[in-house]
């Protein structure tokens, strides 16, 4: 059982209001009696506004969609792009599946770990980056590929990686 201590009341009010404002147009995509279908977009919105999908954010999404907190938790923990724990400021996700590693994905993985001073996947000491290996990104022809904050970068080289990370705020 997830502990929802603090509940929705523990979330900053202005951000909850923003959540509701931005959720309204999303809900219009689904029939009025099928609001629960918006669970992934609602949790993604919560992640964007609150940083990660804490139990309180799960509760908020479940309440607004008229479904159970367990449904929100089930979704939040099933999908790899939904973060139930805090991450670094920037999320760097490198594909190391076969087509990417044939084009040097594994070497880029070593390069990224070295660059961010990480021994394995995780968050850098300054909380600036969270580095992860991910599965096929559908960029096999333009491999190797990575996502940085959910945007795709392709035909990577160490130089290109330097430029991409160097250009982040």
């Amino acid at each position: 059982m997830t502990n929802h201590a603090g509940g929705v009341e523990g979330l900053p009010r202005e951000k909850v209001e923003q959540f509701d404002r931005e959720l309204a147009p999303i809900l219009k995509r689904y029939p009025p009696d099928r609001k629960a279908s918006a669970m992934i977009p609602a949790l993604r919105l919560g992640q964007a506004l609150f940083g990660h999908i804490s139990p309180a954010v799960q509760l908020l999404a479940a309440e607004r969609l008229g479904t159970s907190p367990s449904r929100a938790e089930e979704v939040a923990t099933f999908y790899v792009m939904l973060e139930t724990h805090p991450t670094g400021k920037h999320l760097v996700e490198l594909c190391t599946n076969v087509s990417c590693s044939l084009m040097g994905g594994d070497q880029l993985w070593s390069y990224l770990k070295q660059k961010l001073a990480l021994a394995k996947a995780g968050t850098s000491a300054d909380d600036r980056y969270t580095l992860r290996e991910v599965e096929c990104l559908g960029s096999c022809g333009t491999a190797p590929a990575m996502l940085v904050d959910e945007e795709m970068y392709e035909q990577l080289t160490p130089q290109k990686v330097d430029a991409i990370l160097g250009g982040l705020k």
Partner: protein
Amino acid sequence: MSDTLILSARWAKPNSAALSTYRADGGYGALDKALGMDPSAIVDEVKKSNLRGRGGAGFATGLKWTFLPKDVRPRYLTVNADESEPGTFKDRYIIELDPHQLIEGIALTCYALDIHLAYVYIRGEFAKQARILEAAIEEARQAGVIGTKLLGKKDFDLDIHVHRGAGAYICGEESALLESLEGKKGYPRLKPPFPAVVGLWGKPTIINNVETIANVPWIVQHGGDAFMALGAGKSGGTRLFGVSGHVNRPGVYEKNCDYNLKKLIMEDAGGIVGGRKLKAVIPGGSSSPVLAAHEIDISMEFDAVKAAGSMSGSGGVIVFDESACMVRALARLSRFYAEESCGQCTPCREGTNWMEGILHKLEGGHGSAEDVAKLEQVANSIAGNTICALGDAAAMPVQSFVKKFKPEFLAHAELRRCPCGDTGWGITQAPRDAVAGPVRYAR
């Protein structure tokens, strides 16, 4: 060999994703034509065309459409844009470079089947493609192409929405996709009932792949017979083949669906990089059984590849040259299936992890000949024993890699190390350009 391009013809045009570009090239002409046809005549043309599902299964699209029960409404259309099978990267270009062709296909399908609400389920990692598609749908809505009338002339309510996933290969499985679209985790459903009978929110639902639906405008415009004439056997039309790995020109190639696999690799994709020899080819996405170098002189038509012991699948062709270690390749693929197994069925949940573990051991030089035998045993215990096809998809690469490259697996056990080296997995070996149909991506 005819050079008809159905799917990639406009990709190189400036502003190829704009409604104006599509219209200037005759776009939405098929929808205009369809409005003068009986909806059932559209279904007949699609049946005649022998259009087969481009997501991987190759099921006859027209036949699938006839599974809808006659009297149940509403019905829904969901377009599968979850493209996640390793080696597959084609639907993204349709969406990125010509989204209106997909939208016209959706409108035609909905008109033909009396459907008024359609969702495009797109994988979460395709953020850019989702934005492009949403903008194109909005443009079509604003221009009165869809909405409460089709092309501003025929009363027909049609709403199309984009639903982004959030990272789960299993959601490309049609019933897991529906669960996900209903706001749940992606656990595949038992079939039957099939989605055409009991689908989204319990209602009859047609689920087709992006590339499948994008073919419908051409079929309506030119007729089912003309589409069939581009194919062979029981497969009509062209296909987008994605070639990746050790080739000189990786990318997406649109070819008639019975195109020769060897020619695709050796001529279109420029042959093997660095002048090395070909070792193996995965012909239709990572789940399809691997072919050895001498087995690739075959037609890519669905039934022809099946006869050759593999699957044409998603058309994702992964090429390995002689430097690539087959144990390493399989170990990575098995890690993928272990990661992506949803956990619902025991044979798949446990078996994929076993296979990953054994392969990791072998790759690192800690395995034995018994491990190779156990690997095959585990794969055979998963296949056919799960609710959805992910179990089979995980087992097939293992079964085929071990069968065709057994000496290499045993050598890892005997030598207690990898005898291949890692020259084939380098970043510096080949800075080469990629293509998407006529579009070139310089590295």
